[in-house]
């Protein structure tokens, strides 16, 4: 039917191992990319970007990051919110020029970084912090590790709330993203154009997704998956668990840091650490990858879309179309999203990505049942 394989031959190993081996699938992917880059920016407004697309893109990056750790390497983490906070605060410090103090004296101050490098530095700093909090994973597994990362979550939030250096000594402890631009196009601050912020986040999302995809299907990813499936066996066949686990923590935290940096600087513009990066953020991203599908890049996107867009859709239907009271709709949102998660995981324990895989399989064989 759609997925015709007749006449679609691979003649090289590279062709055989590509992400989208079926021609139709590959072209669909190019079309989606083309639309996302060349069509969407021209037709969106503030509401589209700030309420739907930016959160979707940013959460997708966070979900990819967490998926590398939990889905590919099997190290359960509940510290996502804290790691996003590291990304946000690192980005803020680099945006405003890092000041190093020693004994009450200003030792030196770095120049203000461009927003692109600030975001990347947010990722780099988070990778370092992630490795630090990943150390316990070398000795403990499962629930015990989840508790250790939970500690990271609470410690990091406490740190950013407590040490005023992180928020440049502002009276309220809030951090505000100053106006920054790339080649004269504003990316942060209140006067941004919707297309600019959208393309900026889209760029990071595409790069992160491509990098993650290529890491996970290369030898690094295979090592992670070996550790996930059976760490003893992996060690016996020559996978170094220390390197595998710590690289997973580093790469995962790098992505999560980038998402945190974008979340603060481009999407919200001002954050308060306890409110924006609390434990509920960790759970939200974890739900995204569980619903989307563990160990799948597409799953990260699908899960992010599900949990970002569905509440907004329910709100639009309930409040704007049906005219119900806002509080009833908000309660119903919780109930419906919760129910959907339960039903969904009973019907398809491996998430939306698996559903997609099965559908694709069926389409390939159609009209024959097997």
């Amino acid at each position, binding site marked *: 039917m759609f997925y015709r394989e007749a006449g679609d031959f691979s003649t090289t190993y590279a062709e055989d191992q590509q992400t989208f081996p079926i021609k139709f699938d590959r072209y669909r992917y190019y079309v989606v990319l083309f639309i996302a880059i060349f069509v969407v920016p021209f037709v969106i407004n*503030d*509401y589209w970007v700030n309420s739907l697309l930016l959160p979707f893109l940013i959460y997708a990056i966070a979900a990819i990051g967490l998926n590398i750790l939990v889905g590919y390497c099997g190290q359960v983490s509940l510290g996502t919110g804290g790691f996003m906070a590291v990304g946000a605060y690192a980005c803020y410090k680099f945006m405003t020029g890092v000041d190093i103090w020693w004994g009450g004296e200003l030792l030196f101050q770095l120049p203000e970084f461009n927003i692109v490098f600030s975001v990347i530095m947010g990722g780099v700093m988070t990778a370092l912090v992630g490795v630090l909090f990943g150390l316990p994973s070398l000795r403990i597994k499962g629930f015990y590790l989840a508790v250790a990362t939970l500690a990271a979550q609470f410690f990091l939030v406490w740190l950013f709330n407590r040490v005023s250096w992180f928020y440049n000594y502002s009276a309220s402890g809030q951090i505000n993203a100053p106006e920054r631009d790339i080649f004269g196009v504003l990316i942060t601050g*209140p006067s941004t154009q919707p297309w600019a912020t959208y393309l900026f986040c889209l760029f990071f999302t595409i790069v992160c997704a491509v990098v993650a995809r290529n890491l996970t299907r290369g030898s690094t990813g295979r090592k992670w998956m070996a550790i996930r499936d059976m760490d003893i066996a992996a060690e016996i066949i020559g996978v170094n668990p220390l390197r595998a686990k710590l690289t997973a923590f580093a790469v995962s935290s790098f992505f999560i840091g980038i998402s945190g940096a974008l979340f603060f600087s481009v999407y*919200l513009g001002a954050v*308060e650490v306890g409110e924006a990066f609390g434990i509920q953020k960790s759970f939200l991203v974890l739900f995204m990858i569980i619903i989307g599908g563990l160990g799948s890049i597409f799953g990260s996107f*699908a899960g992010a879309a599900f949990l970002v*867009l569905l509440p907004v859709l329910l709100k639009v239907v309930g409040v704007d179309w049906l005219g119900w009271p806002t*509080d009833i709709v*908000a309660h119903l949102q919780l109930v419906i999203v919760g129910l959907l998660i339960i039903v969904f995981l009973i019907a398809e324990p491996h998430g939306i990505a698996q559903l997609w895989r099965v559908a694709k399989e069926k389409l390939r064989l159609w009209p024959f049942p097997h």
Partner: protein
Amino acid sequence: MKYKLGTMAVAGLMAASPVMADLVFPSLSYRTGPYAAGGIPFADGYADYFTMLNERDGGIGGVMAKVIECETGYNTEKGVECYESTKGEGSLVYQPLSTGITYQLIPKTTADGIPMHTMGYGRTSAANGEVFSHTFNYPANYWNGASGAINYLLAENGGDLSGKKIALVYHNSAYGKEPIRTLEELAEKHGFELSLLPVDHPGQEQKSQWLQIRRDRPDNVIMYGWGVMNQVAVQEAANVRFPMENFIGIWWSGSENDVLAAGDAANGYKALTFHGVGSDFPVFDDIQAHVVDKGLAAGAGDQIGTVLYNRGLYAAMLAAEAAKTAQEIHGTADITPAMMRDGMEALEITEAKMAELGLPNFGPEFNVSCENHGGTGLVGMTQWDATAKEWTLISDFAPTDMEVIQPLIEEDSAAYAAENNIEPGCK
């Protein structure tokens, strides 16, 4: 799939928002979530006052007022979503009722040219209108509150606080941290000793803070709390037998929700305020006749006359008066957000005006100017009577120490102006 969802959402939005010729007052309310107990009465009061204007006077200056509610749950992301989805409807003024959402919306509203009124919360230095052109926080702000509490204690102690110990129990967030600088300055000025006790969101856990209070025995405790934190603190204070009359809350820690749970133990607890308490005002008869009896009351209709309901009503009254002022200035009934801003900047609230509105002595007299978006900063004190189950005003709206507050406002707003390349000045 994601595109389909998005398309449906936006198609829905377009279908659901016909062009309105009403005066739109969006209400970013929270009737759900951890702070709902405070959000519900405020949202009810805000909506009911406009309903009453529509029913009684046919709107404001002949144009109907329309309140669009959007549920934020006190969550900043939902707050942004609410702002973006309502700003295109001709919204005249935003009242987010959350310091976190305020911080996010200050730059956005300024860029979009829509005024925002953060009454007794938000960013205190927004009182400097030369820097914050579209943000207003009259009639009083957090720092007036801090100073008001200290002035009250000064009066109690014969004008001398030297050697006294005062503890600040605060919500460990932007909101709770706001008064610290002011209190530190005041501590230096009056020679009292200030100790800081942060309480983390949502505030259920306060055992250690109150143990410390029991050990240190401060003469007074000042509290900046919100939501469940307040009632827990009042209960804990009763548990460590802290004398309630020495315990002062900011206006966000002074509603019925905060003290009813502790029963008789809460008797004598005090809270600051910038508006009247109770339902003994003529306007409530109109609300009863035009809103409640017609079955138009917002929410469950069971909050009328509570402290936070009155605050919502007061916010609505100030918004309506600013709209009237704007209509007078620009000579048109159908005002835009830009005209609304001018109206807010020229707002004048006098005793005669309040009496005419059926709210005699309900709040302080104040006027707003371009330089001062914060009003006069007069605050009063209320006290809880546990047997009668009501708050009473125990001191008049008194001035606060602007000598200390004004330089702090200048300093903080100058920092904001420098960060964001704003040229301070009045147009």
